[in-house]
């Protein structure tokens, strides 16, 4: 069985990517199972999706334990110990990461010794579709790594995007995007998983704890600081202070209270809290806020 784990953030099209990969594998005559997994159904929150491809009926469900291929659509997830997209990696896993960073830097920083494909799918997606929804690019590159035919990718993405209500013009741009991603990605040798290897853990007998512990409450304060909330965004708002009238509309509209007002009355963005939602840019009456891609989050 070939097992593929895809990691990204809500709104990036990861579920659609898993559907395209699933469709392509299915129309190539395989048994297929695919599933997205998400807790908070929220734009920007981490999501994962799993695709299992097999010659025989699949006797597995849920999260994949050992991945043949790990695809990471958002490199900020690599720094999160909670999401840990590398936890299903074995010695033979092929890893593909969407990043503008240097592959050797990623290798060193995250101690990766596997076959690693690093590709700036975000740039390609922006250049061609003028948007930053990565599903199609991720799916197309994944299908190429797996050695499937482009015709099947095109057929599936047309029907998947139509299904979720994407306009014809955008579908055409996405086909162009898929083609570029497909052509620039090389095939890889993807290992099949024959026997799952997991660390076995003994069963314990839970004992009673005081309600102070055993009631689901949070007593610690300020622990949202433990998560890099700004990691959610691929773009950051930048204010051109020359044209800013200090009207404070951005400050009022920001859903994450990421704006503060400095001593001169000018708005200042806290990039650790900004999720790049674009609302400030949309609401700014003098249009002095622009969005700039975050290179090193």
């Amino acid at each position: 069985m070939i097992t593929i784990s895809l990691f990204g953030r809500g709104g990036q099209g990861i579920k659609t990517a898993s559907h395209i990969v699933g469709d392509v594998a299915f129309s190539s005559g395989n048994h297929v199972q695919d599933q997205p997994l998400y807790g908070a159904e929220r734009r920007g929150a981490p999501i994962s999706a799993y695709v299992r491809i097999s010659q025989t009926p699949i006797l597995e469900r849920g999260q994949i334990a050992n991945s043949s291929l790990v695809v990471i659509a958002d490199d900020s997830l690599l720094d999160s110990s909670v999401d840990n997209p590398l936890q299903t990696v074995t010695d033979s896993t092929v890893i593909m990461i969407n990043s503008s960073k240097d592959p050797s830097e990623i290798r060193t920083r995250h101690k990766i010794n596997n076959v690693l494909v690093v590709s700036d799918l975000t740039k390609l997606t922006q250049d061609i579709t003028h948007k930053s929804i990565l599903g199609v690019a991720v799916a197309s590159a994944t299908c190429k790594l797996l050695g499937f035919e482009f015709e099947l990718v095109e057929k599936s993405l047309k029907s998947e995007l139509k299904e979720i209500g994407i306009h014809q013009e955008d579908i055409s741009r996405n086909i162009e995007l898929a083609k570029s991603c497909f052509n620039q990605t090389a095939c890889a040798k993807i290992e099949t998983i024959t026997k799952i290897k997991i660390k076995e853990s003994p069963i314990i007998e839970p004992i009673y704890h005081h309600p102070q512990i055993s009631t689901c409450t949070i007593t610690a304060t300020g622990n949202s600081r433990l998560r890099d909330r700004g990691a959610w965004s691929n773009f950051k708002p930048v204010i051109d202070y020359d044209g800013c009238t200090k009207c404070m509309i951005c400050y009022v509209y920001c859903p994450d209270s990421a704006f503060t007002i400095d001593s001169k009355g000018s708005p200042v963005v806290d990039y650790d809290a900004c999720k790049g939602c674009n609302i400030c840019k949309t609401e700014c009456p003098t249009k002095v806020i622009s969005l700039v891609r975050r290179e090193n989050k």
Partner: protein
Amino acid sequence: MKQLITGNAAVATAVKLCNVEYIPAYPITPQTEIIELLSRWINEEKMDAKFVTYDSEHSMISAAGAASLTGARTFTASSSQGLLYAFEMLYNVSGWRAPIVLANVSRAVASPITMEPDHNDVLAARDSGFLQIHAETCQEVLDSVIMAYKISEDNRVRLPVIVNLDGFYLSYTREPVDIPEQELVSQFLPEYKPVFGYLNAQNPISMGVAVLSSNAYSYFKYQLHLASLNALTVHEEVSNQFEKLFGRKYGLVDEYMLDDADYVIVMTNSFTTMGKAAINRLREEGKKVGLLRIRMIRPFPKKVIAEKLAGKKAVGVIDQNVSVGSGGILYPEITSALYHSQERPKSIISFIGGLGGKKISISEFRHILSTLETSSHTDKFPVQSIMLFTEDDWGSVKEMLKIAGKGDVSGN
């Protein structure tokens, strides 16, 4: 034709194939996709049904029951808190003998809030008079909805049915599903045309009436029980007809490597798939272990369970639920089904696993088997249910407790 669809899409597809006429709806994760698909198809005129959104699940179930009593084939869906919110009306709808089908997409019940499945939601409705069919695969989900109408509308039964599918593990999981031809489904399940007991202006009747008499109450209530028990026979007939037309056969229970097994693990719903994989692995290691999945939960197929488990050395029941203060919910039902069997297994042990969608790992299956082996060789039987929870599971919870501000928790 086989298509890759989710469990939710399998439900919606079956509802469309059954020519359902009325769908009252209220959204809840992980069920919403079902009603989204149905409302879309109705909007696109691919389906001729009335779709109404309600202000709550309580109203939704009331409307479903009432609509069914006008003679309309009715479908509705819910999950978790939604099903619990509708609770009072579940008992009414079954008492009205309204043959609706309700898809419940299992999700663990708050508090604490979570999204993934266990069966405390659907099993809470076990005494309501609804029949319950619990599915393992997306194919079985589709087939069970079609079969459910046939059973439900049979005058030997005439009770509502819950078809249960696990949230995420089936609801959002795409698998190859053979979608039957409309013509065949219409042949299997003709138009619903009740000839008695439905609301009609020309022949007025009173429904949902009070009895205020214990004799009458006892009579009507026990009739529900008899109707439900009839479903055991009706299911078999319907299953045979279904097999003739569609080539797939469903029993009240489903067995896996059971015949020569000394030890048996009993499970329900989609986690059974993982159970089967574990059985394969344990068989490779030379263990004579098999699996029994209970598909029909209400009526509870006591006789067939007793037959299938007769002569086994030991049985482990995995309840993916917990009746707080008692243990697994299905365990006592299974033990009571076996009590008078001459060949009852020496030990039947209760396990609780998969709560809130926690995966049941190979370590846990191994633990079940070794507990069964030990108990069949010794005379030691645990009094309480055994929780399937590993040292690693506890390690991750300890981390969370620390972040939540509870310090280093000692113990375990």
